[in-house]
């Protein structure tokens, strides 16, 4: 499926690399225009190291336009620290469309923050926001386009806002994290 990965930290690189290697079409949005230009010039790939060795993951696109990254994505992944969520929510709000699922690992109740920001911006599409309790990767970047993954989340308790859309959200997220998502009710 098409997945948008937001930002360019440890979690975003681990996510984009893993999803691309699993066969998903991954678009990565980064705020830093210079980093986008460097990453595109380097072929929009991620060198991913884990216990099996080193792999090259090819991304469909690395872009500074959040709308381009999100357009047509079934899943939008926002693996950032909680203090970055408010700014991302503002930028994301006009671009989300009916049926999309936004997943925030870890959450810190960011799913409700995002949902509220999007609603207040006047975008009233039916959207699901989900969060889990930790970043699904123990990972650190070892270079500008290189990440080492020490462990992956195997049990990810996941809450959905609003809970009424949980079935849809968990089905989409489950395709990105096969066997790891454990439904745990509402966002709290």
């Amino acid at each position, binding site marked *: 499926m098409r997945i948008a990965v937001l930002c360019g930290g440890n979690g975003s690189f681990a996510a984009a690399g893993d999803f691309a290697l699993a066969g998903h079409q991954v678009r990565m949005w980064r705020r830093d225009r210079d980093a986008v230009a460097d990453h595109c010039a380097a072929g929009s790939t991620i060198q991913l190291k884990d216990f099996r060795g080193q792999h090259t993951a090819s991304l469909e696109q690395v872009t500074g336009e959040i709308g381009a990254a999100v357009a047509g994505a079934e899943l939008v992944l926002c693996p950032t*620290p*909680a*203090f970055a969520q408010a700014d991302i929510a503002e930028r994301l709000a006009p671009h989300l469309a009916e049926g999309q699922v936004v997943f925030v690992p*870890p*959450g*810190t*109740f960011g799913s*409700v*923050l995002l*949902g*509220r920001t999007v*609603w207040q911006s006047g975008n009233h599409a039916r959207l699901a926001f989900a969060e*889990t*309790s*930790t970043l699904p990767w*123990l990972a*650190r970047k070892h270079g500008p386009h290189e990440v*080492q993954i*020490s*462990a*992956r*989340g*195997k*049990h*990810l*308790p996941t*809450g959905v*806002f*609003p*809970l*009424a*859309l949980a079935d849809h959200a968990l089905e989409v997220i489950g395709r990105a994290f096969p066997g790891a998502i*454990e439904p*745990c*009710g*509402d*966002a*709290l």
Partner: protein
Amino acid sequence: MNAGPIIHPPLIVMNAGPLEHFEKWDIHNEGTQPAIRRVTDALDRERVAIREALGYAAPHFPLADHYAATGPEWMYGRGSHEKLTKSGDWCERIVLGQHRYMLEDTRMGLSFLASVARLAGVSTPLVDAFLAIGSAITGQDFAKTGRTLASLGLGGLDRVGLQALLREGFR
């Protein structure tokens, strides 16, 4: 359910001396000592008490499972604590006033937990203590700069109102 606000605040606050003194200090390895583990377990019990008071059922994913060699697997599966410390990636420079463990997990994670605890009528002395110490270390008042139900515009809701919003969304 968030794990970061339970594991990280005791690790950075109780290791504040070595973190500032030594060039490198691995909070997950040499910084994870029995006294600190007793505190993370007690802090985790406050989190679980809030969950239970609000009517959320097990599994609560107790942090103790992360360190245990037997019993239920925690979020990253068996042996992940060993993989993490062995990688050497976490033996890193942590500047207390700037790091995510302080500004995300302590400031935002624990302030949120404290506000939900008030709604649930649960007392959380360790949550409050780490918020106070974190505020003193950074020179900012986490009660004001953190994340609370009120700062999210939900301060006027009681428990039933909040849980209805969480079910149905904004309308």
